[in-house]
C-alpha cells in the first residue's frame, strides 16, 4: 500500500495520536508532535477567506506516518500583483525515529509544492536542521533573517542568559559583571553610543489600540510598493492575525501629527530555558514605509520597556528595519531564523541576492504565531 497524503480530517485524529506516541517512544524531542485536532485552532478557513491554515497527513494503510501544515496568505509581489503564497510549516515525519520512513519528509514537501508552487519556509531552527539542508539541496533560494536583541535589564541578562552562560569562565565573568555593575555600565554605554550615532527620530504619538482599524489600509497601500515582497498587512488581515481576543499582544498605532506612519505588534514571549526567568519581549510584527522604520522600532521598543521586559528581541529581513534596530540600541547576533523560497517563488524575487535585504519578513511570518513568537 503506497503512502498517500490527504487533508487531515477528524477521523484521522486517533491515528495522529498514535503517530505522536511512536515519535515520543522513539526518542523524538517532546515538542515534536503533530496537531491533535484536524481543524486548525489558529487561522482555520472561514467563508472562503484567503488567509488560512490547513493540515495534511501522510497515510500508510490508515496509519499516519507524517504530516505538515500549510498557511495560505496573500502576498504583494514585485510585478505589482497580489497572489496567494504558501508557508510550509510543522512538517513531521516518522523518518526521524524510523529509517523505513525516511522518504516521507520528501513526499510531504512534494505534496505542498504541488498544492502551492509559490512556497516558502521560515524559521526552521537554523541551517543545521534537516529541512533547510534538504531545501538547499533542492535549489531553494535562502538567507538568514537577521536577529537583534536589546538588553533592558543588564543585571538579569547577565544572571539569566543561560544560552551565553555555557562555561565556568563565562559564568564567572557574567556574575562579576552583574555584581560589580561593570556589565550594566558596559551594556548601557554600548547602547548609548549606538543611539548617539543614530539619526534623529521625529516625534511621534503612540497609541495602544484594541484592534487594528481601517486606518491601516492606506498605510498598507503606501508602504507595500517599497518592499520587494511582503505578506499583505491590511486591516482585514491584521484583525485575523491579531484579534482583539489575543490579550497577550499589544497593538500599536504610530502617528506623526495627524498622519498614520506605522504600526507594530509586540508581546511577551513564552518562557524559554535559554533565557532563564527573564521576561523577553518580542517585536512580533511591524509595518511602515522603510523611512519611518526608526520611529516604529523606537515606539515598539519603548512599549516593551514600559511593560518591564528584561530583554527585547526581533527578526527583520529588510535592511532599513535592521538599521532602525541598530539605531535603537539593539545588537545583532547569529540568526537561526532561515527564509527559504521555492524556485517558483524565488523566480518572482529575482535577483534574489539583491532582493533578500528588501523583502519584509518578521517573526509574524514564521512558525511562531500565535504564541511562540
Amino acid at each position, binding site marked *: 500500500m*503506497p*503512502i*498517500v*497524503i490527504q487533508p487531515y480530517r477528524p477521523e484521522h485524529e486517533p491515528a495522529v495520536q498514535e503517530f505522536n506516541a511512536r515519535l515520543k517512544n522513539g526518542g523524538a524531542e517532546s515538542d515534536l508532535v503533530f496537531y491533535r485536532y484536524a481543524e486548525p485552532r489558529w487561522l482555520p478557513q472561514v467563508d472562503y477567506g484567503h488567509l488560512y491554515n490547513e493540515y495534511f497527513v*501522510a497515510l500508510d494503510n490508515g496509519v499516519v506516518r507524517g504530516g505538515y501544515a500549510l498557511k495560505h496568505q496573500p502576498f504583494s509581489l514585485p510585478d505589482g500583483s497580489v497572489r496567494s503564497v504558501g508557508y510550509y510549516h510543522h512538517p513531521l515525519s516518522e*523518518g526521524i525515529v524510523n529509517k523505513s520512513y*525516511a*522518504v516521507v*519528509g*520528501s*513526499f*510531504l*514537501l*512534494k*505534496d505542498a509544492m*504541488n498544492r502551492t508552487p509559490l512556497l516558502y519556509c521560515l524559521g526552521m531552527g537554523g541551517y543545521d536542521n534537516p529541512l533547510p*539542508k*534538504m531545501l538547499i*539541496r*533542492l*535549489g531553494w533560494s535562502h538567507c538568514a533573517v537577521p536577529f537583534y536583541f536589546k538588553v533592558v535589564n543588564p543585571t538579569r541578562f547577565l544572571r539569566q542568559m543561560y544560552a551565553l552562560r555555557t562555561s565556568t569562565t563565562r559564568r564567572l565573568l557574567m556574575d562579576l559583571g552583574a555584581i560589580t555593575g561593570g556589565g550594566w555600565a558596559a551594556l548601557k554605554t554600548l547602547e548609548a553610543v549606538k543611539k548617539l550615532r543614530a539619526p534623529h527620530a521625529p516625534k511621534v504619538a503612540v497609541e495602544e489600540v484594541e484592534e487594528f482599524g481601517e486606518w491601516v489600509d492606506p498605510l498598507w497601500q503606501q508602504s507595500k510598493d517599497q518592499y520587494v515582497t511582503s505578506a499583505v498587512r491590511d486591516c482585514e488581515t491584521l484583525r485575523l492575525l491579531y484579534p482583539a481576543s489575543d490579550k497577550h499582544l499589544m497593538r500599536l498605532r504610530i502617528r506623526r501629527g495627524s498622519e498614520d506612519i506605522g504600526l507594530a505588534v509586540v508581546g511577551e514571549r513564552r518562557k524559554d530555558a535559554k533565557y532563564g526567568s527573564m521576561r523577553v519581549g518580542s517585536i512580533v510584527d511591524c509595518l511602515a514605509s522603510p523611512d519611518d522604520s526608526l520611529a516604529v522600532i523606537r515606539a515598539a521598543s519603548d512599549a516593551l520597556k514600559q511593560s518591564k521586559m528584561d530583554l527585547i528581541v526581533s527578526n527583520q529581513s529588510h535592511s532599513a528595519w535592521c538599521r532602525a534596530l541598530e539605531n535603537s540600541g539593539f545588537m545583532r547576533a547569529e540568526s537561526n531564523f532561515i527564509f527559504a523560497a521555492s524556485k517558483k517563488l524565488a523566480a518572482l524575487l529575482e535577483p534574489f541576492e539583491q532582493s533578500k535585504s528588501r523583502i519584509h519578513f518578521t517573526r509574524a511570518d514564521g512558525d511562531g504565531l500565535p504564541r511562540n513568537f
Partner: protein
Amino acid sequence: MTSNIFEQVRSIASDLFSIPSERITAESSPENIEAWDSTQHLNLVLALEEAFDFQLSPEEMEKMRNIGEVVKVVESKISATKS
C-alpha cells in the same frame, strides 16, 4: 519500455547522481546508487517534471523504486497526457 524515454531518464539520472549514464540500468536504485537518497529522489522527480512537462504526485514518487519503474511512471504520465 521505450528506449527513447529510457535514454532521457538515464541522462537525467546521470547528471543528478554524477555517474556515467552507461552505468545506469533499469535495475539501478537507491540500493546501488549511493547518491540516490530521499532528497535526490525529490530532485529526480522535479527534473523529470521539468523535462517532460507534467506533475507527479507523492504516490507516483513512491512507485519509482528503480530506474525501470521511473521509466514506467513517465510513460504512463505521457500516455495519460496524450489521451
